[in-house]
């Protein structure tokens, strides 16, 4: 796959105490409707025992409204298991997307220095 395709890259890492595991999903590239399916699938593979999930969007180049919908679905699923979600953004456009989307509070949005 060439660089021009700039596909979404997703990586999931888990850490934390045995009793309170946490996971981080790292999203790189274009997080848009075309890629939302893969994000949703990845989110479904998260272990149910997690106490906290962080989605790191600092290396995305696109975050569209379909991606926001996907994050809202993730928060809903995690909530059912008593797991918290936080979303990390850094670049100005990423901060704008969360603010305009009205999701700063709902998705617990942070910048890297606030983590």
């Amino acid at each position: 796959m060439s660089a021009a395709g700039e596909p979404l890259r997703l990586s999931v890492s888990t850490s934390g105490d045995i009793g309170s595991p946490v996971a981080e999903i790292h999203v790189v590239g274009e997080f848009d409707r075309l890629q939302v399916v893969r994000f949703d699938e990845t989110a479904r593979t998260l272990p149910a025992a997690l106490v906290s999930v962080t989605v790191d969007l600092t290396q995305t180049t696109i975050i569209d409204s379909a991606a926001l919908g996907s994050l809202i679905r993730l928060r809903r699923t995690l909530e059912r298991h008593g797991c918290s979600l936080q979303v990390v953004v850094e670049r100005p456009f990423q901060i704008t997307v969360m603010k305009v989307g009205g999701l700063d509070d709902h998705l617990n949005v942070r910048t890297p220095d606030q983590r």
Partner: protein
Amino acid sequence: MNETVDAGPMASVRLELRATAVSIAVGRAVLRRVVTFRDPDAESSFLIAFTEIMTNAVDEHVRLASDRPIVVEIEQTPHDLVRVNDSGAGMSDESLVTSAPDGSVERGRGLALARAFVDDIAFESSPSGTIVSLPLAGFGIIR
């Protein structure tokens, strides 16, 4: 001075795309090649607005099962701009003014995002389709 009936000034690029999600990524790939963006943040900001407008055009064609193409024009005259033309049924006045929902509602943020990033976005909508103009001023220039 010979007035021509057709076309007018030629678009730098004119794209006819099917109503699919891949087409949106194709549009972005072309814009990245044709436009020199001021900086990466300007690039992402403009391309998100473009993505939302394309998404709405695709949704509208899918809703109507239209097999007509969505036309994207990248034009240099008189100002650099990107125009997305669909053959849908047009936008309601309501959809033109509604702002983004908050909290747990999954949809309805597209136009709010497009407007937030591209101040001077312009909509021309009629029952035979919608034309959305996204001026490039402040974001970049066509090569």
